[in-house]
């Protein structure tokens, strides 16, 4: 009886912290989104007013579209490189550890430093790295973050640079975990590289890849720091994501109720993705047993 009490006492700090930081804000955030807010104070119930104001404003459609663009580009740019590089490094007999370390190095930089570094690289005048290269090639300096059509692509480029070493390392450790006997016996049976890839590497990697893709969707859907640090959502809202919109409503424009409503809408979308992730996770684990 006494030892049961001790056990609960030791568990309590973590549980209380999770209650304060995760569960309570999550629940009250949804409840408050139906209330009128004055500053950061909760006023009277106002039904769907906040939602109507969010959904009818130009910002919501724009931010949602942009967020999907972030997800799309992060796949177009970020899906294949880490996978291919993990495969390539795994094939090396020369300089294998060297490549692994060199390519992993950028991941050691704190995320904010990479963002600020890229901000300086993208500078629109002649001092940015990319513009120095352009001018060396005899071209005019280019406003890398000033074009509404490509600004998201530029931000995703930075996100990919930051994120891909970690993903690459994850894939690489999985590849290392595939038993060599499988490849060896396939070789003896006369299977060429393509067949070994299709019948050994792919089935062994598939579960991890599927989980990673869903995780990436959930992660990129919440992108806020890149637009906040690099562009401030601009030009003219072209890089504004839903999370950044939430930040803007709450902390720059003083429209807290609308921010809470936006948060709740995003939460519903992501909850669906999370449930799908759990479903997939179970499937993957069943396959590995």
């Amino acid at each position, binding site marked *: 009886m006494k*030892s*049961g009490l*001790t056990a*609960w006492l*030791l*568990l309590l*700090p*973590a*549980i*209380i*912290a*999770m209650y304060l930081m*995760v569960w309570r*804000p*999550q629940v*009250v*955030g949804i409840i*408050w989104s139906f209330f009128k807010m004055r500053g*950061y104070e909760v006023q009277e119930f106002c039904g769907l007013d906040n939602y109507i104001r969010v959904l009818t404003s130009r910002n919501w459609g724009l931010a949602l579209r942009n967020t999907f663009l972030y997800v799309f580009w992060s796949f177009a740019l970020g899906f294949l*490189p880490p996978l291919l590089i993990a495969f*390539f*490094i795994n*094939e*090396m*007999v020369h300089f294998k550890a060297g490549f692994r370390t*060199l*390519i992993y*190095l*950028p991941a*050691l930089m*704190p*995320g*904010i*430093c*990479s963002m*600020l*570094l890229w901000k*300086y*690289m993208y500078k629109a005048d*002649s*001092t940015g790295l990319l513009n*120095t290269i352009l001018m060396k090639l005899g071209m005019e300096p280019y406003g890398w973050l000033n074009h509404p059509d490509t600004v998201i692509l530029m931000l995703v480029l930075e996100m990919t640079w930051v994120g891909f070493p970690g993903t690459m390392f994850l894939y690489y*450790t999985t*590849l290392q975990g595939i038993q*060599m006997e499988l*490849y060896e016996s396939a*070789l003896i049976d006369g299977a060429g590289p393509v067949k070994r*890839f299709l019948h050994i*590497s792919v089935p062994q990697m598939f579960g991890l890849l599927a989980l990673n893709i869903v995780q990436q969707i959930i992660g990129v*859907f*919440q992108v806020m720091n890149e637009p906040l640090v690099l562009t401030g959502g601009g030009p003219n809202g072209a890089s504004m994501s839903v*999370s950044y919109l*939430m930040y803007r409503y*709450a*902390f720059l424009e003083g429209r807290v109720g609308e921010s*809470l409503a936006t*948060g709740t809408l*995003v*939460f519903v979308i992501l909850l669906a993705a*999370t449930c799908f992730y759990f479903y997939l996770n179970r499937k993957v684990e069943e396959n590995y047993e």
Partner: protein
Amino acid sequence: MSRFQEKQTTLLSRVELATVKGRILYWCLFALLAAMAFITLFPCIWMILCAFKTPREIAAGSSFFPENFSLKGAAEQIAFAWEVLEMGRSILNTLFLCLTNCAITVLCSGFAGYVLSKRKRKGMGEVFVLVVWTMMMPGSVRMVSTFISYLSFPLLIDNGLDIPTNVNVLNTYVPMWVGAAAGSFTLILFKNAFDAIPNTLVDAARIDGCSTVRIFFQLMLPLAKPTVFYVMMGALSGPWADYFNPYLLLSDPSKYTVPTWLFVIQGKTEVTTNVYMMGLIFACIPPALLYLFFQGRMTGGIMMGAVKG
């Protein structure tokens, strides 16, 4: 080429590598990797080179390498940047936050993981499911409601005394500390690591009269070293990367951490590009040192995270 003969069979094997086509393919991949390594390192190299240029060289944008580079000049530039950036205060703040976060994480998540692994009581299965869901909850959507809750944070339970139970914790490190205690992923990592330790060890220690706290510190933590180091590295390097929470929650710049400080001094006129790049280098050094220190000690920890993806 004897090294090709010894190559472990993966997609390319000694059979393919004995042919000319296979060799060409192999060296093409090698060249591609070299190019990729160069591209990934290029921004970092540029950052370092820029830090040692003069403002005039950067404005002209003509040379890639700093002109008239000398060791003495470089040392002077480092000293000059250090003076302009005034980072000392923020470095101390970050160190303080790192160490406190690390202690809080290991104690709170560690003890909770230990209880959920080795001291299971009725109802704790449900608690664990809750923790897993906590980990999966998308974090960004709570930003605003969490911020509002900091304005009157229920730090104490109602004690019947005259002490206020709800306090405004903005402009303090309390939110960061509570956040460190709420790490659901680290809790699960700890639980998994402790699950791998045989129950009989714990039972034997308890029969010998070992207290729970002693079992935790002298048995569980040393046996789960890779995970402990992995979690410690995460907690220690976290404040070097998180600019957002201090920026949002602290109003007093003398409490800012290094990333937040770097974020807010961008606009200052005396902070020229070369000085700023030096600041970024300063900010990268502590996490890099942490990684070097922990690198070899936490392989098991990374693998454990990797299994589940």
